[in-house]
């Protein structure tokens, strides 16, 4: 089957800023695909282009075989887009908001009850159907915004940082909903600054300065990081590790929660690295070999630019 989305050498600039540079990726039908990158990486520009709100300067972007330059109306009919600041009407109820978006997308009246039932089932918002949107918690607002985005039964869902500012429990719930939608065949493109969410995608592209640094399944990306990595569990050092950074054989040091993650040059033996760091600190330390996480890969890609990712 052909991919649902095909982005081919796509570039886009705003005046002097090159927002996206020569970006190429594909999204298969039914895939949960993540755009991962720091602020300003070009994620939002890419998403807006996918939903035909922006036109590529060069290169081509197609959705279901349709060019975003020429088939705006057709693409919008099959696409649901949730921007970072999705506008709900705070003085309308949950149900009134959904009905409003149903009218905007010209959902036939006779189909509406069945669709609302379905949206309520996964969002668990039915008990709150009369509550004003302005009085919902952050997590519930996001679920309502998602429901409004889904009212016209899109085959493609484009979500720009849907869980920013949402607490960990509500974030988990939101991602369970995304997995349910994918199981029903919806293709989802989502951007996120959270690496634990990136791990929940089928495939991701890591973007930086408008370009793709790496693509693949999160697990493959993690496996491709071959530099030896160690953890040093010491809370006192977590934010105060400049003495370690300059130790010969140390390539990089990053704080991770209450420990440090240290990558070595690769050639140095773990015991030697351990005693060199201990020497620099003036006491014994214990380095624990660890497998890198996606966050390690992300940092290595962006800060060092030199990780051997396939």
């Amino acid at each position, binding site marked *: 089957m052909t991919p649902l989305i095909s982005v081919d050498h796509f570039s886009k600039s705003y005046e002097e800023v090159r927002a996206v540079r020569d970006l190429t990726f594909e999204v298969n039908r039914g895939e949960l695909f993540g755009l991962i*990158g*720091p*602020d*300003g990486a070009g994620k939002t520009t890419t998403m807006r282009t996918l939903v035909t709100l922006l036109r590529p300067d060069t290169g081509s972007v197609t959705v279901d075989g349709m060019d975003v330059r020429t088939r705006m109306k057709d693409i919008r009919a099959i696409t649901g887009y949730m921007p970072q600041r999705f506008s709900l009407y705070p003085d309308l109820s949950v149900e009134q908001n959904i009905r409003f978006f149903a009218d905007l997308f010209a959902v036939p009246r006779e189909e509406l009850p069945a669709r609302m039932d379905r949206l309520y089932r996964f969002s*668990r918002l039915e*008990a*709150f159907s009369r*509550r004003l949107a302005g009085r*919902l*918690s*952050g*997590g*519930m607002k996001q679920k309502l915004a998602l429901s409004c985005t889904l009212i016209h039964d899109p085959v493609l869902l484009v979500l720009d*940082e849907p869980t*920013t*500012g*949402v*607490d*960990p*429990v*509500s*974030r*988990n719930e939101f991602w369970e909903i995304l997995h349910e939608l994918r199981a029903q065949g919806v293709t989802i493109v989502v951007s996120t*600054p*959270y*690496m*634990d969410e990136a791990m929940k995608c089928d495939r991701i592209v890591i973007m930086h300065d408008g370009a793709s640094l790496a693509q693949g399944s999160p697990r493959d990306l993690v496996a491709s990081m071959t530099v030896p990595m160690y953890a040093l569990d010491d*809370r006192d050092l*977590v*934010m*105060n590790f400049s003495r370690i950074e300059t130790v010969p054989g140390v390539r990089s040091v*990053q*704080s*991770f*929660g*209450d420990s440090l993650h240290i990558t070595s040059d690769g050639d140095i033996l773990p015991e030697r690295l351990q005693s060199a760091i201990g020497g620099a600190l003036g006491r014994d330390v214990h380095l624990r070999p660890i497998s890198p996480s996606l*966050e390690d890969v*992300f*940092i290595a890609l*962006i*800060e060092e630019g030199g990780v051997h990712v396939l």
Partner: protein
Amino acid sequence: MSSEHLRFTGDPALPASEFAVSATDLTKRFGTFTAVDAISFTVRKGEIFGFLGANGAGKTTAIRMFCGLLPPTSGTANVAGYNIRTQSRYIKQTIGYMSQKFSLYEDLTVAQNIEFYGGIYGLTREHIARKTEQLLEELQLQDRRNKLTASLPLGWKQRLALSVSLLHDPSIIFLDEPTGGVDPISRRNFWRIIYEIAGSGKTVFVTTHYMDEAEYCNRLSIMYRGRIIEIGHPGELKERYGLDSMQDIFIHLVGGDIRPENTP
């Protein structure tokens, strides 16, 4: 430095306390809804204290009371040695506050934002001018001083907002989700600055939804339905619950179907 507000900050004659924050049965009701329900806890000076909780647990209401912006319904609290009921105007001059959402004026330039806040905090003109140069240099924003704040990348905006909230040299700083929506690298850089701030003796009171950041706090509390249901050192809590991460502890304590937002 002889500006007006210093009369209230550095004076040794003022009530001294080993705690930067101490709350006693602090309560706030809105009509029949109890947003903050008799919370009692203390934060030591120089501590990085994490104030965690789900959306809607009452964190923001509590912080507004600590900042002297909202009077409590009952109970009380001392912040930086001042009582939030009777001395709230002193508190405002002794604390810094930064939130992700409301700190900077996007349509002012970088330098104008610094000048504006310096003026609000009552700093003298020379002091503002000196501080402006110092901050622009520290943040490496000299080239962008006349650019609109809106044009800065999010991570830089947040660092600028943090610097601005420290202009008047507060003894305690409240950070309400300071790193929301920011990538892991910018968040780490931000936390290195937080450690520097705490290292200089200031107290940092911070809320976050990132549980890896919770690990960086010296102590933290978890709020649920207006109450503080757990408090301690991240390591203590992990031991107490036999769990490996703050993420697991948070979900264990706050997760499931018993959240207030799931009860109509």
